[in-house]
């Protein structure tokens, strides 16, 4: 937080500047969130249910507009460009992809068609599509054995892998990952976070991860922001936050 401003700008992938999000023109869901994601970083967005984590991610990906909400104040810059009025599909093409809370696979489509659909936005040739699919299958070998299965019939962990794999097919530089641990067994959660860390190391994919599970999130993220009732109440490096020892209190409303 103390680096020179120009230094930050060079390494910055995403900058969210004091945004406010209003649903239906009346309900304030996010009221003053600022955060940055550096290139090649993993940043966690922590907070209890209803703190505004999902809404913040949807504001960044542009999906808020699909829910009759809008960013009514502040600005979101991706790669130095203002995203106001930019269609969600254009944001995906620019390298930003959103993995929704609750996974949201296409249940009637096969696992492979789910993955392929992520490649459509890039207009891939047949060979490139096949090559990129193989790349996803090396990350998630389990999906290859289920490629012909309807995604709705696979397990929760597999659906999360489908959702992440589908997002990776868009070749993102930034993945907005919403609540990846939700409803999954700890061992599966760990498996998924390990893959996230590996993607980050080997492919320089950056992540902004909304999580309720502080322990898992802070094991992998370098930085974190804590949200409470739509505001950032705390932020800092993993070490600084872990040193406080009172993070859980924010979930219990003690601050």
């Amino acid at each position, binding site marked *: 937080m103390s680096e020179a401003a120009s230094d930050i700008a060079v390494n910055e992938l995403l900058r969210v500047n004091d945004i406010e999000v209003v649903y239906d023109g009346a309900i304030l869901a996010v009221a003053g969130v600022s955060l940055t994601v550096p290139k090649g970083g993993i940043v966690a967005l922590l907070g209890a249910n209803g703190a505004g984590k999902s809404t913040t991610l949807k504001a960044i*990906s542009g*999906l808020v507009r*699909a*829910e*009759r909400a809008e960013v009514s104040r502040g600005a979101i810059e991706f790669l130095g460009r203002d995203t106001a009025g930019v*269609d*969600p*599909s254009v*944001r*995906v*093409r620019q390298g930003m*992809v*959103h*993995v*929704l809370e609750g996974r*949201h*696979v*296409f*249940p*009637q*489509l096969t696992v492979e*068609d*789910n993955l*392929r*659909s*992520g490649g*459509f*936005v890039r207009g891939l040739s047949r060979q490139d599509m096949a090559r990129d699919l193989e790349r996803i299958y090396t990350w998630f070998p389990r999906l290859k054995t289920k490629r012909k299965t*309807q995604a*709705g*019939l696979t*397990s*929760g962990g597999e659906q999360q892998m489908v*959702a992440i794999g*589908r*997002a990776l*097919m*868009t070749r993102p530089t930034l993945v907005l990952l919403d609540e990846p641990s939700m409803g999954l067994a700890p061992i599966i959660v760990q498996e998924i976070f390990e893959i996230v860390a590996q993607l980050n190391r080997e492919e320089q994919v950056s992540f902004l991860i909304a999580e309720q599970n502080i322990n898992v999130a802070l094991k992998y993220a370098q930085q974190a922001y804590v949200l409470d009732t739509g505001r950032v109440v705390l932020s800092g490096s993993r070490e600084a936050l872990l040193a406080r020892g009172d993070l859980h209190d924010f979930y219990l409303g003690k601050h």
Partner: protein
Amino acid sequence: MTFFFETLLGGLLAGTMYSLVAIGFVLIYKASGVFNFAQGAMLLFAALTFVSLHDQGVPFALALLLTVVVMVIGALLIERLVLRPLVNRSQITLFMATLGLSFIIEGLAQGLMGSQVRALDLGIDDVPVFIGGMMVSQFDLIAAAAAIVLVTVLALLFNKTRIGVSLRAVADDTTAALSIGINLNRIWQIVWAVAGIVGLVAGLLWGARQGVQFSLSLVVLKALPVLIIGGFTSIGGAIVGGLIVGAAENLAEVYIGPLIGGGITPWFAYVLALAFLYIRPAGLFGERAIERV
């Protein structure tokens, strides 16, 4: 027994005409979750456009092509002027919009092309042919063949192309489709255009059968029981639903009709649909959500 099968076959063939109308609804329902009341008006508009062009001496193939172009332009306009401004509104709002749209299209059709009954000659003689001793209408056979070709083309479109997979993705989960960059507006344009072309095929066959006139748009009301029986989300369901309605109407007219004084055809499909609502509300092939417990 031959008579029974003849009645059944005649009904099944007539049923494919219902299926054709119902498919147009299913397409739009799947992609945008709305029961498009204007499908009948689109069908009338397509048939009227074709007849008007053909009457002015435009050759058959060219008139067909021009009508397809008109339907595609219409789809683009509807997407831009009606669907896009109403995105995310409730289903009933969208339904009301299509209701209004149907009157606009009908008014436009009659204003531009007149309201008198127009004969449409597709060059198919409606003479009976004999198959295995059963008398079958040649026109019905050709209409059924047209339906089969159309359905095959649609099945290939949906299962083998990227546009088709995108469309099924939108039908499954619109938000998720948006999240991976699928352009919803583009999908709507394509679906409405395809529904318009399906409407054209249905309009030509129905128009050739009963003349191109205002009442053609009322075939929507015949599609409703077909959709209830087959399910709103399945093209296969629309086909089977159409066949069931066609066969049931014909059989009921012949075997039950005399007992209660005839005139069964106009309402029998609705009674059948009501029975299905009791037993199987999602329809025969309606997609119930896949959910793990």
